């Protein structure tokens, strides 16, 4: 399945957002997620199924003004 991960095309067979995060090594990481422009809470990642062409954002703390 092709998705857009953080703005770039990405191939994955992960079924859920939680699985995708785990495969990327983010299982214990300090991240937040959104799917197709809407926030998905950490507790809902396991029940958020991924679909073809989904746009996934995975963000972390960064310097800011």
């Amino acid at each position, binding site marked *: 399945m092709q998705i857009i991960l953080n703005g770039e095309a990405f191939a994955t067979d992960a079924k859920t957002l939680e699985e995708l995060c785990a495969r990327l090594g983010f299982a214990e990481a300090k991240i937040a997620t959104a799917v197709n422009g809407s926030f998905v809470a950490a507790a809902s990642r396991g029940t958020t199924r991924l679909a073809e062409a989904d746009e996934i954002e995975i963000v*972390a703390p960064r310097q800011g*003004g």
Partner: protein
Amino acid sequence: MLTLYGKDFASRLLLGTAQYPSPESLKQAVKASGAEIITVSLRRESARARTGQGFWALIEELGCKVLPNTAGCHTAKEAIATAHMARELFNTNWIKLEVIANDDTLQPDLFGLVEAAGALSAEGFEILPYTTEDLSAAERLVAAGCTVLMPWAAPIGSARGLINREALKTLRAYFPDIPLIVDAGLGAPSHAAEVMEMGYDAVLLNTAVAKAGDPVKMAAAFARAIEAGRLAFEAGLIEPRDMASPSTPVAGTPFFKIDHAS
């Protein structure tokens, strides 16, 4: 004491965490500034670089109140989704709400800002909105639930100081009981002192400190200027006048003679 959303702060300087020459200089600058509130953002995390994880460890070490921003958002929808992610990521209801209208000026999109503020406020967010000096936008932000306003002094990163001093003065007069924080556009400690003398409650800085030749020293300089400006405001400035007025007593001046010519 500065009170924002029921929390008291001794420092009236809020400091951004971006653009420092090194993590160590960021740490030292925060310390030298005495800031108790620091701003952060959230950005896409790469599985390889994992940049955000290391940055978070540094921020935790500083022990400051973290104020996440929605920098770079161009619509209310983006800002709302970013605020949701920030609330979970940083475990805070506080959000420095930015909706940007234009990439050259980085001026706030006041319509998007008011829309996002209303939605987020209804969800329990405590919003510090990056706005302009516009009174009607300020009124709408307050009506939307904002109990703090953060007008710009000049475009972000421009270091130009107060480009619309009179409007900032009006805003201060119009909202005597709302904490007002000047956010963006200051370049020199004298700019910060000036807004504090005008009765502004605090100043939010980033570029002016981070890009200074010596960020740590500049952080200390701004801290003192802000403290000086606040003390001056509390002390009450004298009114300017057109003509001179001698400070040394006139009575008893040696060689004094009444000028009969006048």
